[in-house]
């Protein structure tokens, strides 16, 4: 049945009338996603290629039954947009916007979490369930429907892994980009829990990178709660210590948080880890071919 985004998704796009917002909304709709509304304050009553635009998310939810929001507004308005979506009763918020101040995201996260409202991102590529729905910026043509659940902190690296898997003839249940910011709404563990419960998903690939300890926590969770086979790829083996590599996720200092330490932690819990995208695809293919 896939996770997060499916045939049940009814999408509202916040920031639909912006250049990127329009482009990706229409791509998502072309893929088959049920896009029911857009929101741009002051443009209520207009439409984007037939998709009705509302002044507020509350209006969009009331009029169209939207249950999922994609946030495509500039970073300084993104926290407000997420609060608006949550307050309007949206159950899953997918925040593509990047560059949101960490303290603002902390406030958003702290609000959403105890209320059971799901957030993917920010600074994430969204989620794609091949053949069902695509919410975000993941290039869908790379992926085919199948049994591999893929979850990643990195956007483009996810596409790379997906492409390698596709070349090996493997499809995906859902591809989830959780984002690489200091505060993201969905963790590896959250995604693992969903994949474990999802019938379509037969095995899981997690794509991590240096910095933080999310991969280590995922390893513990896998040992305790996941029965399906899990594979992993970690980026950043050659990153020098003490340097910030791109997003805040990729800070290493000392040995903790290094790619080698993460690989070790995962392998200690029975997760097979590849050291480059090709290798992880080979590991998965070998397993499936058994």
């Amino acid at each position, binding site marked *: 049945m896939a996770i997060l985004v499916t045939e049940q998704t009814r999408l509202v796009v916040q920031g639909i009338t912006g250049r990127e917002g329009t482009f990706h909304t229409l791509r998502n709709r072309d893929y088959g996603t049920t896009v029911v509304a857009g929101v741009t304050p002051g443009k209520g009553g207009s439409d984007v290629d037939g998709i009705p635009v509302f002044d507020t998310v509350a209006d969009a939810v009331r009029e169209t039954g939207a249950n999922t929001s994609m946030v495509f507004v500039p970073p300084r308005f993104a926290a407000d947009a997420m609060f608006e979506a949550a307050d309007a009763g949206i159950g899953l918020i997918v925040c593509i916007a990047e560059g949101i*101040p960490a303290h603002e995201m902390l406030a958003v996260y702290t609000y959403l979490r105890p209320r059971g409202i799901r957030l993917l991102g920010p600074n994430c590529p969204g989620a794609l369930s091949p053949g069902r729905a695509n919410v975000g910026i993941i*290039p869908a043509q790379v992926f085919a429907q199948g049994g591999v659940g893929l979850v990643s902190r990195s956007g483009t690296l996810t596409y790379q892994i997906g492409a390698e898997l596709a070349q090996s003839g493997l499809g995906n249940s859902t591809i989830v980009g959780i984002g690489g910011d200091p505060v993201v709404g969905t963790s590896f563990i959250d995604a693992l829990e969903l994949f474990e419960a999802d019938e379509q998903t037969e095995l899981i690939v997690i794509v991590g990178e240096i910095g933080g300890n999310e991969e280590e926590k995922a390893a513990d969770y896998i040992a305790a709660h996941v029965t399906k086979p899990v594979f992993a790829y970690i980026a950043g083996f050659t990153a020098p210590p003490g340097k910030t590599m791109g997003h805040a996720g990729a800070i290493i200092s000392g040995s903790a948080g290094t790619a080698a330490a993460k690989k070790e932690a995962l392998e200690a819990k029975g997760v097979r880890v590849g050291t480059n995208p090709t290798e992880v695809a080979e590991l998965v293919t070998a397993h499936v071919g058994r």
Partner: protein
Amino acid sequence: MDLYEHQGKELFARFGIATTEGRVAFTPAEARAAAEELGGGRVVVKAQVLTGGRGKAGGVKVADSPADAEAKAAGILGLDIKGHITRRVWVEKAVSIAKEYYFSITFDRGAKAPLFMLSTMGGMDIEAVAVDHPEALARLHLDPAIGLKPFFVRRLLFAAGVPKPEHVGVGEIIARCDTMFREMDAMLLEVNPLIITAEGAAIAADAKVTIDGNALYRHADVEAMRDAAAEDPQERMARERDVTYVKLDGTVGILGNGAGLVMSTLDVVDQVGGSPANFLDVGGGADAAKIVTALEVILSDPKVKAILFNIFGGITRCDEVAKGILAALDQLTIAVPIVVRLDGTNDVEGRRLLSEAAPPNVYPERTMLDAAKRVVALAGGR
């Protein structure tokens, strides 16, 4: 963005956090004038560098008079501390130190909460305290939904074993630091040492502050504190042009979209026998102009012998990247070969643009691995 001690203390003063009185000085003569302005008594002259360990490196000296301050500043200015050249000193009034505590607030991304740490064993390397005397380091996460309430400060003070008479003074510093941490969008705020004077007053005697780069747009005053002169010239150029660039030691220039993919590209280049010259992430949705800019940054490193473009388009469109490459070839003098791998959004169009223009010295490849092998060959190995 990391702040110098004197900048951090400027913010401390703004938020009413008790701190030392001092002046910044860029020359020995300014240090002498500063010492005079501070009353002519005993001062401490401290190197201002964005790294730790300056005490051991001889970057902190006590001076008994303005003349002495000038002499001490002369010895400190120009000092190389872990690769950082000292270009400014902070001259502050000496205070009577009875005890040295440690206090910090860290934005803990794992716990998704600010982490407060307090110890009566300050002044020294706090990581050593954490290892050798873990019970002496009180660690408490603040629930952001509650915010800083009196009970939280009490818990921290009792847990660290701060004597009751000092609760008001140290508690005041903790509460005001929390306000500053939030209002200034800080990711780290460290006070080591937090001094208890002979009179029992609590004073923040050092300041280590990091501000969230994503929030600088609303802190123009902090942005203005940036010491562009102390930055690596290439990294500054990259920052000003809004691409993420980290200089490394190798010969293969690397450009990609997305931090994870670029890191992965470094790994693969390394695995096939090359040595990356840099990490460069053009970010999401880069247009042609940004590609030109990013190439300029990479080319400013004379060690680069070949360049690898590894693009997997999502929000980034491969046709824009191709246009950027062609524009760069047009506008810049590019002597090194460029290997280009385009995949994802609008990849067909991007590849078509490149193959139609067919510029010399540009080598298209279809996979990341092949592209890595090709660029390493072109760069002549490690």
